[in-house]
């Protein structure tokens, strides 16, 4: 990747990290309900989303802040949503776990683990039937891959030849259960073959590798029209849902993965390759911090929804 792109990637990843840290601290102050953060998974979000073009769509799950921000979401509107304010992307009705934004092409987020897998086939079908270009990316976890819907979705996409990039963010955890307790294989990419579709796996801590793997998968989808399963090997560096002391996590495993924090790796790469120096990156960190502070202010200032919103938007 060129210096430009890679520095942009750093900026986005830093934004995601700062956003999630802000959410953690606001949750700690009880200024918003608990939430799932994507700390540790920034390279996955930025690597995949930056490989999409603007007419591609995204479906995602409860751990979606990275995908939204990578796509260009406004952190102030995201924070407002998490705080339950009317200025949020969904007017405060969704909360943190199901933010969708039609204008950004981030459609139909589900916190039912497996939900996005059951919706994505229809989204892709609509695109192809309406003659619209573009791939649909569907982010889900290793836990979601234990749901039968994962297989139903892959199978239908395969049989109907739907242009879907399935992105399994295998972060080794399914809430309070380690992935190893839930499957014999070391991941889910092996299922692609059973459904007759392409599959690949990538180091999810390396944003360049993720971006390349995603680009490769997307260009195959564009050529063939058929779906592809990309497994991104990453790690949930914080707990499942704030607050969470991670007492159940093996400290050695956590330390091993912390050493591969995607932001640390990217920082090192940028500096070692001479694409940026410490000061450049520190400046980005500071800018991002300022942006987040401002976002908190905007979100704070947004009013709560009015009572009549309780029953609006139930029916079209």
């Amino acid at each position, binding site marked *: 990747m060129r210096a430009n792109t890679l520095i942009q990637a750093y900026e986005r990843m830093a934004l995601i990290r700062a956003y999630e840290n802000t959410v953690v601290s606001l949750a700690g102050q009880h200024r918003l309900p608990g939430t799932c953060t994507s700390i540790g998974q920034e390279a996955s979000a930025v690597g995949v989303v930056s490989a999409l073009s603007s007419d591609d769509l995204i479906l995602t799950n409860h751990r979606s802040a990275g995908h939204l921000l990578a796509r260009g979401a406004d952190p102030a509107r995201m924070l407002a949503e998490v705080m339950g304010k009317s200025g949020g992307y969904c007017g405060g*009705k969704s909360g943190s776990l199901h933010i969708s934004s039609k204008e950004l092409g981030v459609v139909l987020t589900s916190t039912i683990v497996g939900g996005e897998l*059951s919706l994505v086939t229809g989204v892709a079908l609509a695109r192809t039937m309406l003659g619209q270009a573009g791939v649909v990316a569907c982010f889900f976890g290793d836990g979601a891959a234990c749901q039968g819907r994962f297989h139903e979705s892959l199978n239908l996409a395969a049989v109907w030849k739907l242009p879907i990039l399935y992105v399994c963010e295998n972060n080794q955890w399914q809430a309070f259960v380690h992935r190893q307790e839930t499957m014999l294989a070391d991941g889910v990419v092996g299922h692609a073959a059973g459904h007759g579709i392409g599959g690949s796996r990538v180091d999810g801590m390396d944003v360049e590798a993720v971006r390349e793997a995603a680009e490769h998968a997307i260009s195959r989808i564009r050529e063939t029209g058929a779906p592809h399963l990309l497994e991104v090997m990453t790690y949930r560096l914080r707990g499942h849902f704030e607050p969470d002391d991670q007492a159940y996590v093996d400290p050695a495993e956590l330390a091993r993965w912390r050493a591969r924090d995607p932001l640390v790796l990217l920082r090192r790469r940028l500096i070692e390759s001479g694409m940026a120096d410490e000061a450049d990156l520190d400046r980005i960190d500071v800018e991002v911090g300022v942006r987040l502070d401002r976002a908190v202010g905007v979100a704070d200032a947004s009013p709560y929804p009015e009572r009549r919103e309780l029953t609006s938007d139930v029916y079209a």
Partner: protein
Amino acid sequence: MEMTVNDAISAALAEEMRREPTVLIFGEGVATKRPDLLGEFGATRVRNTPLAEGIIAGTAVGAAAMGLRPVVDLLFVPFLCYAMDEIVNSAGKLRYMSGGQFSFPMVVLAMTGTGWGVGAQHNHNLEAWFVHAPGLKVVMPSTAADFKGLLKSAIRDDNPVLFFTDLALGYTAGSVPDGDEAIPLGSAAIRREGGDVTLVSYAKTVHTCVAAAEALAERGVEAEVIDLRTLKPLDEGAILRSVAKTGRLVVVHEASGMCGVGAEIAALVAGKAFHHLRAPIVRLTGPDAPAPSSFALEQAFVPQADDIVTAVEGILEDRAAPVG
């Protein structure tokens, strides 16, 4: 034109698919079983699917959100148990949860009720579940004309609609107006007027109520028969107006009683037409048991005209009973 309920459904599907190119239909065996639609509209709009109700329904939800108007056939109502997340947590909630960004114009077809003798995993009347859940509409017609006209409206509606066909009605015939007659969702039909008692029902048991009303008429009792047609939105006005006139209410359906549609109507009337009521509200429903396969038992499962007559006679006698 005289046609069966099944033909009325087919006619509505064909007309709406002709009218609106974004309408498509899919499900297990849909393309095989509807060769006419397949021939006219092609394999893109008329599709067989793998055997997996969850993803069928989910695909409909996703497609609806993005501009198509899918109709999915999930065959029999108990099979919807595999698609509850998609129908309830997604189709019913995601408009609200997205702050109104998306709408879900889709129809779920399924057969319901007794008549086939294949047991409780094919036969279970679950319409009340979908009435209870937010964001959905529920339609259960009783005549060929209503099947056609209401299915057309269901397909045109911008919300998810559950459209259930009482199995026993499929081959019954009725006169259906020619042309493009959509019947609006949410309005009940008065099948028979009368001033002594209100019989509220839907689907197959509407006909049972009419038969009971005829038997009652011979005894000098005039029953008004209301066919709800749409269970959600519910035509409260039609029910309340009738009870205001008759003062007596019997609700009849095949689904079990507890937390059923009959409970809702009884509660509605006990809340909003209480001062008009002159007798206890009676619910006649299927038993709180799985549907038996054995033909003899399956028939005994369904409320009968005699039961209705007896119930009405009971509450008419009640006229004399002390109030308060």
